[in-house]
Protein backbone atom coordinates (compact mmCIF):
# COMPACT_ATOMS: atom_id res chain seq x y z
CA UNK A 1 0.00 0.00 0.00
CA UNK A 2 1.22 3.46 -0.92
CA UNK A 3 -0.23 6.76 0.26
CA UNK A 4 0.57 10.35 -0.55
CA UNK A 5 -0.59 13.37 1.40
CA UNK A 6 -0.10 16.90 2.60
CA UNK A 7 1.66 17.25 5.95
CA UNK A 8 0.31 18.86 9.12
CA UNK A 9 3.30 19.14 11.44
CA UNK A 10 3.24 19.49 15.24
CA UNK A 11 5.65 19.32 18.19
CA UNK A 12 6.35 17.04 21.14
CA UNK A 13 3.92 15.60 23.71
CA UNK A 14 0.71 16.39 21.84
CA UNK A 15 -1.93 15.11 24.28
CA UNK A 16 -5.31 13.52 23.70
CA UNK A 17 -7.18 16.47 25.23
CA UNK A 18 -6.08 18.78 22.42
CA UNK A 19 -6.67 16.06 19.82
CA UNK A 20 -10.22 15.38 21.06
CA UNK A 21 -11.45 17.57 23.92
CA UNK A 22 -12.71 15.92 27.12
CA UNK A 23 -15.91 17.95 27.06
CA UNK A 24 -16.98 16.05 23.92
CA UNK A 25 -16.30 12.56 25.20
CA UNK A 26 -19.94 11.87 26.07
CA UNK A 27 -21.73 14.44 23.95
CA UNK A 28 -20.34 13.44 20.53
CA UNK A 29 -21.11 9.79 19.86
CA UNK A 30 -21.15 9.66 16.07
CA UNK A 31 -17.80 8.88 14.42
CA UNK A 32 -18.31 11.36 11.59
CA UNK A 33 -19.13 14.09 14.14
CA UNK A 34 -15.92 13.29 16.03
CA UNK A 35 -13.96 14.05 12.85
CA UNK A 36 -15.39 17.58 12.78
CA UNK A 37 -13.74 18.61 16.08
CA UNK A 38 -10.39 16.87 15.56
CA UNK A 39 -7.45 18.93 16.92
CA UNK A 40 -9.81 21.75 17.88
CA UNK A 41 -7.74 22.91 20.86
CA UNK A 42 -4.43 22.43 19.04
CA UNK A 43 -4.90 23.81 15.55
CA UNK A 44 -8.22 25.31 14.38
CA UNK A 45 -6.77 25.48 10.85
CA UNK A 46 -6.55 21.70 10.80
CA UNK A 47 -10.07 21.40 12.20
CA UNK A 48 -11.32 23.59 9.38
CA UNK A 49 -9.20 22.51 6.44
CA UNK A 50 -7.73 19.01 6.82
CA UNK A 51 -8.53 16.77 3.86
CA UNK A 52 -8.83 13.03 3.53
CA UNK A 53 -5.41 11.60 2.71
CA UNK A 54 -3.48 14.23 4.67
CA UNK A 55 -0.65 13.03 6.89
CA UNK A 56 0.13 14.15 10.45
CA UNK A 57 3.74 14.49 11.59
CA UNK A 58 4.44 14.83 15.30
CA UNK A 59 7.34 14.88 17.74
CA UNK A 60 7.92 12.56 20.69
CA UNK A 61 5.16 11.04 22.80
CA UNK A 62 2.27 11.74 20.39
CA UNK A 63 -1.09 11.02 22.03
CA UNK A 64 -0.04 11.17 25.67
CA UNK A 65 -2.71 11.49 28.36
CA UNK A 66 -6.16 9.99 28.34
CA UNK A 67 -7.08 6.55 27.00
CA UNK A 68 -9.94 8.06 24.97
CA UNK A 69 -10.05 6.22 21.67
CA UNK A 70 -11.93 9.11 20.06
CA UNK A 71 -8.54 10.85 19.79
CA UNK A 72 -7.72 8.18 17.19
CA UNK A 73 -11.22 7.74 15.77
CA UNK A 74 -11.56 11.46 14.96
CA UNK A 75 -8.41 11.36 12.82
CA UNK A 76 -9.27 8.02 11.22
CA UNK A 77 -12.72 9.32 10.29
CA UNK A 78 -11.19 12.51 8.97
CA UNK A 79 -9.36 10.29 6.52
CA UNK A 80 -5.85 10.90 7.86
CA UNK A 81 -3.61 8.51 5.93
CA UNK A 82 -0.95 8.02 8.61
CA UNK A 83 0.69 9.59 11.63
CA UNK A 84 4.48 9.78 11.52
CA UNK A 85 6.06 10.66 14.89
CA UNK A 86 9.25 10.37 16.89
CA UNK A 87 7.29 8.22 19.33
CA UNK A 88 3.79 7.44 20.56
CA UNK A 89 2.31 7.18 24.03
CA UNK A 90 1.48 3.53 24.63
CA UNK A 91 -2.31 3.62 24.93
CA UNK A 92 -2.52 5.80 21.83
CA UNK A 93 -0.23 3.39 19.97
CA UNK A 94 -2.51 0.47 20.82
CA UNK A 95 -5.63 2.46 19.98
CA UNK A 96 -4.21 3.22 16.51
CA UNK A 97 -3.55 -0.46 15.85
CA UNK A 98 -7.02 -1.29 17.13
CA UNK A 99 -8.69 1.35 14.94
CA UNK A 100 -6.60 0.49 11.89
CA UNK A 101 -4.93 3.92 11.62
CA UNK A 102 -1.36 3.46 10.30
CA UNK A 103 1.38 4.87 12.51
CA UNK A 104 5.06 5.15 11.83
CA UNK A 105 7.95 5.85 14.20
CA UNK A 106 10.81 7.69 12.48
CA UNK A 107 12.61 10.52 14.24
CA UNK A 108 14.81 11.16 11.19
CA UNK A 109 11.85 11.54 8.86
CA UNK A 110 10.09 13.86 11.31
CA UNK A 111 13.13 16.13 11.42
CA UNK A 112 13.37 16.20 7.61
CA UNK A 113 9.72 16.80 6.79
CA UNK A 114 8.33 20.35 6.57
CA UNK A 115 4.79 21.43 7.32
CA UNK A 116 2.66 21.68 4.20
CA UNK A 117 4.84 19.54 1.93
CA UNK A 118 3.57 16.38 0.29
CA UNK A 119 5.13 13.12 1.39
CA UNK A 120 4.73 9.57 0.19
CA UNK A 121 4.56 6.50 2.42
CA UNK A 122 5.14 3.06 0.93
CA UNK A 123 4.04 0.51 3.52
CA UNK A 124 5.18 -2.49 1.48
CA UNK A 125 8.71 -1.13 1.17
CA UNK A 126 8.57 0.48 4.68
CA UNK A 127 9.73 3.80 3.23
CA UNK A 128 8.85 7.47 3.57
CA UNK A 129 9.74 9.76 0.67
CA UNK A 130 9.82 13.53 1.34
CA UNK A 131 9.01 16.26 -1.19
CA UNK A 132 12.72 16.85 -1.76
CA UNK A 133 13.22 13.19 -2.59
CA UNK A 134 14.85 12.04 0.66
CA UNK A 135 13.97 8.47 1.58
CA UNK A 136 13.67 7.14 5.13
CA UNK A 137 13.23 3.49 6.01
CA UNK A 138 11.04 2.65 8.98
CA UNK A 139 10.79 -0.62 10.90
CA UNK A 140 7.85 -2.82 9.89
CA UNK A 141 5.23 -3.57 12.54
CA UNK A 142 6.19 -6.29 15.00
CA UNK A 143 5.02 -9.75 13.94
CA UNK A 144 2.36 -10.03 16.64
CA UNK A 145 0.45 -6.93 15.51
CA UNK A 146 0.69 -7.57 11.78
CA UNK A 147 -2.41 -9.78 11.79
CA UNK A 148 -4.29 -7.00 13.51
CA UNK A 149 -3.36 -4.47 10.86
CA UNK A 150 -4.05 -6.88 8.00
CA UNK A 151 -7.54 -7.54 9.32
CA UNK A 152 -8.30 -3.81 9.52
CA UNK A 153 -8.21 -3.34 13.30
CA UNK A 154 -8.98 -5.21 16.48
CA UNK A 155 -12.73 -5.75 16.19
CA UNK A 156 -12.59 -7.33 12.70
CA UNK A 157 -9.54 -9.28 13.89
CA UNK A 158 -11.41 -10.66 16.92
CA UNK A 159 -14.47 -11.49 14.79
CA UNK A 160 -12.25 -13.38 12.39
CA UNK A 161 -10.46 -15.27 15.14
CA UNK A 162 -13.79 -16.27 16.69
CA UNK A 163 -15.17 -17.36 13.32
CA UNK A 164 -17.83 -14.63 13.42
CA UNK A 165 -16.83 -12.74 10.25
CA UNK A 166 -19.45 -12.70 7.55
Amino acid at each position, binding site marked *: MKIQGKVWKYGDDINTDVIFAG*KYTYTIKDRAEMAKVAL*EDLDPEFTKNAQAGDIIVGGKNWGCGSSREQAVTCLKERGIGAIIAKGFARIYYRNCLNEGLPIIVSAEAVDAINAGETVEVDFDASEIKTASGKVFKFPPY*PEFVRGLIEDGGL*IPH*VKKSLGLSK
Partner: protein
Amino acid sequence: MGMTFAEKALGKAAGYPVKAGEVVTVEPHFCMSHDNAAPIAKTFKKIGVPKVWKPDHLVFILDHAIPAPTDEHAVNHKEIREFVEEQGIPHFYDVTSKGGVCHQKMCEEGFALPGLIMIGSDSHTCTYGAYGAFSTGIGRSEMAAAWATGKIWFRVPESLKITVTGKFNKGVSAKDLILKIIGDIKADGADYMSVEFHGPAIEAMSIAERMTLCNMGIEMGAKNAVCPPDQKVLDAIKGIEKTNEWEALWADEDAVYASELSYDLGELVPCVAKPHTVDNYAPIDEVKGTKIHQAFLGSCTNARIEDLRLAAGILKGKEVAVRTIVIPASWRVYRQALNEGLLDVFMDAGCVITNPGCGPCMGNHEGILAPGETCISTANRNFKGRMGNKESFIYLASPMTVAASALKGEIADPREVL
Protein backbone atom coordinates in the same frame (compact mmCIF):
# COMPACT_ATOMS: atom_id res chain seq x y z
CA MET B 1 19.07 -13.36 37.38
CA GLY B 2 16.17 -11.89 39.32
CA MET B 3 12.85 -10.73 37.98
CA THR B 4 11.06 -7.41 38.08
CA PHE B 5 7.51 -7.05 39.38
CA ALA B 6 6.14 -6.86 35.82
CA GLU B 7 7.97 -10.04 34.81
CA LYS B 8 6.60 -11.87 37.85
CA ALA B 9 3.01 -10.66 37.50
CA LEU B 10 2.77 -11.23 33.74
CA GLY B 11 4.69 -14.51 34.02
CA LYS B 12 2.26 -15.78 36.63
CA ALA B 13 -0.70 -14.80 34.43
CA ALA B 14 0.89 -16.33 31.33
CA GLY B 15 1.73 -19.55 33.17
CA TYR B 16 5.42 -19.58 32.23
CA PRO B 17 8.48 -17.42 33.04
CA VAL B 18 8.75 -14.27 30.92
CA LYS B 19 11.31 -11.54 30.35
CA ALA B 20 11.02 -7.88 29.37
CA GLY B 21 10.45 -7.55 25.62
CA GLU B 22 8.43 -10.74 25.20
CA VAL B 23 4.79 -10.57 24.18
CA VAL B 24 2.28 -12.51 26.25
CA THR B 25 -1.45 -13.09 26.01
CA VAL B 26 -3.10 -13.29 29.41
CA GLU B 27 -6.53 -13.43 31.00
CA PRO B 28 -7.12 -10.18 32.85
CA HIS B 29 -8.78 -10.26 36.22
CA PHE B 30 -11.01 -7.26 36.95
CA CYS B 31 -11.88 -5.07 33.96
CA MET B 32 -13.00 -1.61 35.02
CA SER B 33 -15.08 0.77 32.94
CA HIS B 34 -16.79 4.00 33.93
CA ASP B 35 -19.28 6.04 31.92
CA ASN B 36 -17.60 4.73 28.77
CA ALA B 37 -19.09 1.26 29.41
CA ALA B 38 -21.94 2.36 27.10
CA PRO B 39 -19.90 2.89 23.91
CA ILE B 40 -17.83 -0.18 24.80
CA ALA B 41 -21.03 -2.22 25.06
CA LYS B 42 -21.97 -1.09 21.55
CA THR B 43 -18.59 -2.18 20.18
CA PHE B 44 -18.92 -5.46 22.10
CA LYS B 45 -22.24 -6.12 20.34
CA LYS B 46 -20.60 -5.60 16.95
CA ILE B 47 -18.30 -8.53 17.67
CA GLY B 48 -21.30 -10.84 17.81
CA VAL B 49 -20.60 -12.75 21.04
CA PRO B 50 -23.88 -12.89 23.00
CA LYS B 51 -22.40 -12.88 26.53
CA VAL B 52 -19.33 -11.35 28.14
CA TRP B 53 -16.71 -13.95 29.07
CA LYS B 54 -17.08 -13.60 32.85
CA PRO B 55 -19.69 -11.12 34.11
CA ASP B 56 -18.14 -11.03 37.58
CA HIS B 57 -14.82 -9.84 36.15
CA LEU B 58 -16.41 -6.65 34.82
CA VAL B 59 -16.76 -3.66 37.15
CA PHE B 60 -18.76 -0.60 36.07
CA ILE B 61 -18.55 2.60 38.10
CA LEU B 62 -20.32 5.77 36.97
CA ASP B 63 -18.24 8.82 37.84
CA HIS B 64 -17.35 11.02 34.86
CA ALA B 65 -20.54 13.06 34.83
CA ILE B 66 -22.91 12.17 37.66
CA PRO B 67 -25.78 12.80 38.16
CA ALA B 68 -26.22 13.22 34.40
CA PRO B 69 -25.75 16.89 33.46
CA THR B 70 -27.12 16.59 29.91
CA ASP B 71 -29.48 14.36 28.00
CA GLU B 72 -26.53 12.76 26.20
CA HIS B 73 -25.03 11.73 29.53
CA ALA B 74 -28.43 10.50 30.75
CA VAL B 75 -28.84 8.28 27.68
CA ASN B 76 -25.30 7.02 28.17
CA HIS B 77 -26.03 6.03 31.77
CA LYS B 78 -29.32 4.41 30.75
CA GLU B 79 -27.55 2.25 28.18
CA ILE B 80 -25.11 1.08 30.84
CA ARG B 81 -27.93 0.09 33.21
CA GLU B 82 -29.58 -1.88 30.42
CA PHE B 83 -26.35 -3.69 29.57
CA VAL B 84 -25.75 -4.51 33.26
CA GLU B 85 -29.21 -6.02 33.46
CA GLU B 86 -28.90 -7.93 30.20
CA GLN B 87 -25.47 -9.39 30.99
CA GLY B 88 -26.03 -9.97 34.71
CA ILE B 89 -23.02 -7.92 35.77
CA PRO B 90 -22.88 -8.03 39.58
CA HIS B 91 -20.35 -5.23 40.21
CA PHE B 92 -22.13 -2.05 39.19
CA TYR B 93 -21.82 1.26 41.05
CA ASP B 94 -24.62 3.52 39.87
CA VAL B 95 -25.47 7.07 40.97
CA THR B 96 -25.99 6.14 44.61
CA SER B 97 -24.37 6.83 47.96
CA LYS B 98 -22.27 3.65 47.46
CA GLY B 99 -20.42 5.22 44.53
CA GLY B 100 -17.58 7.59 43.84
CA VAL B 101 -14.60 8.06 41.56
CA CYS B 102 -13.90 4.74 39.83
CA HIS B 103 -10.29 4.34 40.94
CA GLN B 104 -11.13 5.13 44.54
CA LYS B 105 -13.97 2.61 44.49
CA MET B 106 -11.78 -0.10 42.93
CA CYS B 107 -9.42 0.30 45.86
CA GLU B 108 -11.82 0.75 48.75
CA GLU B 109 -14.13 -2.08 47.61
CA GLY B 110 -11.39 -4.71 47.45
CA PHE B 111 -10.99 -5.11 43.68
CA ALA B 112 -7.42 -3.74 43.65
CA LEU B 113 -5.37 -6.67 44.96
CA PRO B 114 -1.71 -7.69 44.87
CA GLY B 115 -0.47 -9.54 41.81
CA LEU B 116 -3.73 -9.33 39.82
CA ILE B 117 -3.69 -8.30 36.15
CA MET B 118 -6.20 -5.47 36.01
CA ILE B 119 -7.28 -3.42 33.03
CA GLY B 120 -9.46 -0.34 32.82
CA SER B 121 -10.80 1.81 30.01
CA ASP B 122 -9.26 4.82 31.72
CA SER B 123 -5.65 5.91 31.66
CA HIS B 124 -5.46 6.33 35.46
CA THR B 125 -6.13 2.61 36.01
CA CYS B 126 -2.44 2.48 36.98
CA THR B 127 -3.59 3.70 40.44
CA TYR B 128 -4.14 0.11 41.68
CA GLY B 129 -0.40 -0.43 41.73
CA ALA B 130 -0.62 1.11 45.21
CA TYR B 131 -2.08 -2.28 46.21
CA GLY B 132 0.54 -4.24 44.31
CA ALA B 133 -1.63 -4.96 41.26
CA PHE B 134 -0.37 -4.92 37.68
CA SER B 135 -2.93 -2.48 36.36
CA THR B 136 -3.03 -0.46 33.18
CA GLY B 137 -5.32 1.63 31.02
CA ILE B 138 -6.58 0.60 27.57
CA GLY B 139 -8.90 1.98 24.90
CA ARG B 140 -12.51 1.17 24.18
CA SER B 141 -12.10 -1.35 21.34
CA GLU B 142 -9.58 -3.27 23.37
CA MET B 143 -11.92 -3.45 26.36
CA ALA B 144 -14.77 -4.68 24.15
CA ALA B 145 -12.46 -7.40 22.80
CA ALA B 146 -11.42 -8.36 26.34
CA TRP B 147 -15.07 -8.73 27.40
CA ALA B 148 -15.66 -11.01 24.41
CA THR B 149 -12.53 -13.16 24.60
CA GLY B 150 -11.19 -12.87 28.15
CA LYS B 151 -7.79 -12.20 26.66
CA ILE B 152 -5.40 -9.29 26.21
CA TRP B 153 -1.85 -9.09 24.86
CA PHE B 154 0.98 -7.25 26.58
CA ARG B 155 4.56 -6.66 25.74
CA VAL B 156 6.34 -7.39 29.04
CA PRO B 157 7.66 -3.93 29.90
CA GLU B 158 11.12 -2.91 30.90
CA SER B 159 11.14 -1.45 34.41
CA LEU B 160 12.21 1.81 35.99
CA LYS B 161 13.17 1.56 39.65
CA ILE B 162 12.61 4.66 41.78
CA THR B 163 14.04 4.41 45.28
CA VAL B 164 12.76 6.93 47.80
CA THR B 165 14.36 7.74 51.14
CA GLY B 166 14.06 10.46 53.78
CA LYS B 167 11.10 12.29 55.30
CA PHE B 168 8.82 15.02 53.98
CA ASN B 169 9.44 18.48 55.33
CA LYS B 170 6.50 20.52 56.59
CA GLY B 171 4.10 21.46 53.77
CA VAL B 172 5.41 18.82 51.36
CA SER B 173 3.54 15.64 50.35
CA ALA B 174 3.39 12.75 47.87
CA LYS B 175 1.99 15.03 45.15
CA ASP B 176 5.12 17.18 45.33
CA LEU B 177 7.26 14.05 44.92
CA ILE B 178 5.45 12.80 41.84
CA LEU B 179 5.33 16.24 40.21
CA LYS B 180 9.08 16.53 40.78
CA ILE B 181 9.75 13.08 39.27
CA ILE B 182 7.62 13.85 36.20
CA GLY B 183 9.30 17.24 35.87
CA ASP B 184 12.68 15.51 35.91
CA ILE B 185 12.07 12.67 33.49
CA LYS B 186 9.33 14.40 31.45
CA ALA B 187 6.03 13.23 30.01
CA ASP B 188 7.65 10.39 28.07
CA GLY B 189 10.32 9.51 30.64
CA ALA B 190 8.77 6.15 31.46
CA ASP B 191 7.09 5.42 28.09
CA TYR B 192 6.09 1.76 27.84
CA MET B 193 7.72 1.02 31.20
CA SER B 194 6.68 -0.47 34.52
CA VAL B 195 7.58 1.97 37.29
CA GLU B 196 8.48 0.38 40.63
CA PHE B 197 8.61 2.51 43.77
CA HIS B 198 11.07 1.18 46.36
CA GLY B 199 12.67 2.32 49.58
CA PRO B 200 11.97 3.11 53.23
CA ALA B 201 10.07 6.30 52.43
CA ILE B 202 7.58 4.36 50.28
CA GLU B 203 7.13 1.82 53.09
CA ALA B 204 6.46 4.71 55.48
CA MET B 205 3.80 6.19 53.21
CA SER B 206 0.08 5.59 53.66
CA ILE B 207 -1.74 3.74 50.88
CA ALA B 208 -3.44 7.04 50.01
CA GLU B 209 -0.02 8.60 49.32
CA ARG B 210 1.04 5.58 47.27
CA MET B 211 -2.18 5.93 45.23
CA THR B 212 -1.24 9.53 44.42
CA LEU B 213 2.15 8.32 43.13
CA CYS B 214 0.84 5.39 41.10
CA ASN B 215 -2.10 7.41 39.76
CA MET B 216 0.28 9.76 37.98
CA GLY B 217 2.47 7.02 36.49
CA ILE B 218 0.67 7.55 33.20
CA GLU B 219 1.74 11.22 33.20
CA MET B 220 5.31 10.03 32.59
CA GLY B 221 4.15 7.51 30.00
CA ALA B 222 4.27 4.40 32.18
CA LYS B 223 2.35 1.24 31.39
CA ASN B 224 1.87 0.64 35.11
CA ALA B 225 3.25 1.89 38.41
CA VAL B 226 3.52 -0.18 41.55
CA CYS B 227 4.46 -0.14 45.24
CA PRO B 228 5.39 -3.15 47.37
CA PRO B 229 2.46 -5.20 48.70
CA ASP B 230 3.58 -4.86 52.31
CA GLN B 231 1.77 -5.38 55.59
CA LYS B 232 -0.11 -2.08 55.20
CA VAL B 233 -1.65 -3.38 51.97
CA LEU B 234 -2.42 -6.80 53.46
CA ASP B 235 -4.16 -5.10 56.40
CA ALA B 236 -6.12 -2.81 54.09
CA ILE B 237 -7.50 -5.63 51.92
CA LYS B 238 -8.24 -8.02 54.77
CA GLY B 239 -11.88 -9.06 54.66
CA ILE B 240 -12.77 -7.01 51.58
CA GLU B 241 -11.03 -9.02 48.85
CA LYS B 242 -13.35 -9.55 45.88
CA THR B 243 -11.38 -12.66 44.86
CA ASN B 244 -8.93 -15.01 46.52
CA GLU B 245 -6.83 -15.33 43.37
CA TRP B 246 -4.40 -12.61 44.38
CA GLU B 247 -0.81 -13.18 45.45
CA ALA B 248 1.68 -10.74 46.93
CA LEU B 249 4.40 -10.46 44.26
CA TRP B 250 7.41 -8.19 44.32
CA ALA B 251 10.63 -7.69 42.40
CA ASP B 252 13.73 -9.69 43.30
CA GLU B 253 16.69 -7.86 44.82
CA ASP B 254 18.76 -8.65 41.73
CA ALA B 255 16.11 -7.77 39.15
CA VAL B 256 17.38 -5.99 36.04
CA TYR B 257 16.16 -2.45 35.40
CA ALA B 258 16.23 -0.26 32.30
CA SER B 259 17.09 2.61 34.57
CA GLU B 260 17.16 3.62 38.23
CA LEU B 261 16.48 6.88 40.03
CA SER B 262 16.56 7.90 43.65
CA TYR B 263 14.91 10.69 45.60
CA ASP B 264 15.34 12.03 49.12
CA LEU B 265 12.04 13.43 50.41
CA GLY B 266 13.94 15.88 52.60
CA GLU B 267 15.16 17.71 49.49
CA LEU B 268 11.67 18.37 48.12
CA VAL B 269 9.75 21.65 48.35
CA PRO B 270 6.09 22.43 47.62
CA CYS B 271 5.70 22.74 43.86
CA VAL B 272 3.30 22.99 40.93
CA ALA B 273 3.03 21.82 37.34
CA LYS B 274 2.50 24.96 35.29
CA PRO B 275 0.17 25.13 32.27
CA HIS B 276 -0.13 23.28 29.90
CA THR B 277 1.90 20.12 30.59
CA VAL B 278 2.26 17.93 33.67
CA ASP B 279 6.05 17.91 33.33
CA ASN B 280 6.23 21.72 33.52
CA TYR B 281 7.58 21.64 37.10
CA ALA B 282 8.15 24.79 39.13
CA PRO B 283 9.07 25.13 42.81
CA ILE B 284 6.54 27.21 44.70
CA ASP B 285 8.86 30.23 44.97
CA GLU B 286 8.82 30.63 41.21
CA VAL B 287 5.02 30.89 40.90
CA LYS B 288 3.74 32.21 44.22
CA GLY B 289 1.68 35.33 43.80
CA THR B 290 0.12 34.13 40.52
CA LYS B 291 -3.53 35.20 40.64
CA ILE B 292 -6.12 32.40 40.61
CA HIS B 293 -9.88 32.41 40.07
CA GLN B 294 -10.75 28.91 41.24
CA ALA B 295 -9.32 26.20 43.45
CA PHE B 296 -10.24 22.52 42.99
CA LEU B 297 -9.70 19.91 45.68
CA GLY B 298 -10.76 16.61 44.19
CA SER B 299 -10.12 13.87 41.57
CA CYS B 300 -8.70 10.34 41.64
CA THR B 301 -5.29 11.80 42.47
CA ASN B 302 -5.94 13.68 45.70
CA ALA B 303 -9.41 13.52 47.26
CA ARG B 304 -9.04 10.83 49.88
CA ILE B 305 -9.69 11.43 53.57
CA GLU B 306 -5.96 11.97 54.15
CA ASP B 307 -5.94 14.72 51.48
CA LEU B 308 -9.07 16.37 52.85
CA ARG B 309 -7.57 16.40 56.36
CA LEU B 310 -4.44 18.17 55.10
CA ALA B 311 -6.47 20.81 53.27
CA ALA B 312 -8.89 21.27 56.18
CA GLY B 313 -5.95 21.76 58.52
CA ILE B 314 -5.03 24.84 56.51
CA LEU B 315 -8.58 26.15 55.93
CA LYS B 316 -9.85 25.72 59.50
CA GLY B 317 -11.18 28.96 60.92
CA LYS B 318 -10.31 30.92 57.78
CA GLU B 319 -12.11 32.01 54.65
CA VAL B 320 -11.24 31.34 51.02
CA ALA B 321 -10.65 34.29 48.69
CA VAL B 322 -11.76 32.53 45.48
CA ARG B 323 -14.41 29.97 44.63
CA THR B 324 -13.18 26.64 45.96
CA ILE B 325 -14.71 23.34 44.89
CA VAL B 326 -14.27 20.32 47.13
CA ILE B 327 -15.18 16.87 45.77
CA PRO B 328 -14.45 13.88 48.03
CA ALA B 329 -13.28 10.81 46.08
CA SER B 330 -16.20 8.63 47.18
CA TRP B 331 -19.28 8.73 49.35
CA ARG B 332 -17.40 6.71 51.94
CA VAL B 333 -14.78 9.45 52.07
CA TYR B 334 -17.55 12.06 52.08
CA ARG B 335 -19.22 10.45 55.11
CA GLN B 336 -15.94 10.12 56.95
CA ALA B 337 -15.17 13.77 56.26
CA LEU B 338 -18.63 14.63 57.55
CA ASN B 339 -18.12 12.61 60.73
CA GLU B 340 -14.70 14.14 61.32
CA GLY B 341 -16.14 17.64 60.97
CA LEU B 342 -14.10 18.38 57.85
CA LEU B 343 -17.14 19.31 55.78
CA ASP B 344 -17.99 21.93 58.42
CA VAL B 345 -14.48 23.30 58.08
CA PHE B 346 -14.85 23.54 54.29
CA MET B 347 -18.31 25.10 54.48
CA ASP B 348 -17.28 27.57 57.16
CA ALA B 349 -14.38 28.57 54.92
CA GLY B 350 -16.75 29.25 52.01
CA CYS B 351 -16.00 26.17 49.88
CA VAL B 352 -18.60 24.49 47.67
CA ILE B 353 -18.84 20.75 48.27
CA THR B 354 -20.31 18.61 45.50
CA ASN B 355 -21.18 14.94 45.23
CA PRO B 356 -18.30 12.49 44.70
CA GLY B 357 -17.30 12.04 41.06
CA CYS B 358 -14.77 13.40 38.57
CA GLY B 359 -16.37 16.86 38.62
CA PRO B 360 -14.57 19.48 36.54
CA CYS B 361 -11.32 17.49 36.14
CA MET B 362 -11.89 16.73 32.48
CA GLY B 363 -14.25 19.52 31.58
CA ASN B 364 -17.62 17.82 31.97
CA HIS B 365 -19.32 19.95 34.64
CA GLU B 366 -19.19 21.38 38.18
CA GLY B 367 -16.53 24.01 37.71
CA ILE B 368 -15.72 24.71 34.05
CA LEU B 369 -13.39 27.68 33.64
CA ALA B 370 -14.07 30.85 31.65
CA PRO B 371 -11.57 32.25 29.12
CA GLY B 372 -8.64 33.88 30.86
CA GLU B 373 -9.29 32.17 34.19
CA THR B 374 -6.72 30.27 36.21
CA CYS B 375 -7.39 27.29 38.46
CA ILE B 376 -5.13 25.58 40.96
CA SER B 377 -6.07 21.92 41.13
CA THR B 378 -5.19 18.71 42.94
CA ALA B 379 -6.00 16.70 39.79
CA ASN B 380 -3.51 15.05 37.46
CA ARG B 381 -3.75 16.94 34.17
CA ASN B 382 -3.36 20.57 33.17
CA PHE B 383 -3.60 20.19 29.40
CA LYS B 384 -4.98 23.04 27.36
CA GLY B 385 -8.77 22.86 27.44
CA ARG B 386 -8.77 20.12 30.06
CA MET B 387 -11.26 21.89 32.32
CA GLY B 388 -13.52 22.78 29.43
CA ASN B 389 -11.97 25.95 28.07
CA LYS B 390 -8.85 26.24 25.95
CA GLU B 391 -8.24 29.85 26.96
CA SER B 392 -7.90 28.91 30.65
CA PHE B 393 -4.90 27.90 32.75
CA ILE B 394 -4.46 25.01 35.20
CA TYR B 395 -1.73 24.64 37.82
CA LEU B 396 -1.45 21.22 39.46
CA ALA B 397 -0.47 21.07 43.11
CA SER B 398 -0.88 19.22 46.40
CA PRO B 399 -3.96 19.53 48.64
CA MET B 400 -1.95 21.74 51.04
CA THR B 401 -0.78 24.07 48.29
CA VAL B 402 -4.29 24.27 46.81
CA ALA B 403 -5.78 25.10 50.23
CA ALA B 404 -3.15 27.75 50.97
CA SER B 405 -3.71 29.29 47.53
CA ALA B 406 -7.48 29.31 47.97
CA LEU B 407 -7.07 31.42 51.11
CA LYS B 408 -4.93 34.02 49.35
CA GLY B 409 -6.55 34.09 45.92
CA GLU B 410 -3.12 33.54 44.47
CA ILE B 411 -0.68 30.66 44.35
CA ALA B 412 0.73 30.43 47.86
CA ASP B 413 3.34 28.49 49.81
CA PRO B 414 1.61 26.15 52.29
CA ARG B 415 4.60 26.42 54.64
CA GLU B 416 3.63 30.02 55.32
CA VAL B 417 0.20 29.12 56.65
CA LEU B 418 0.96 25.90 58.51
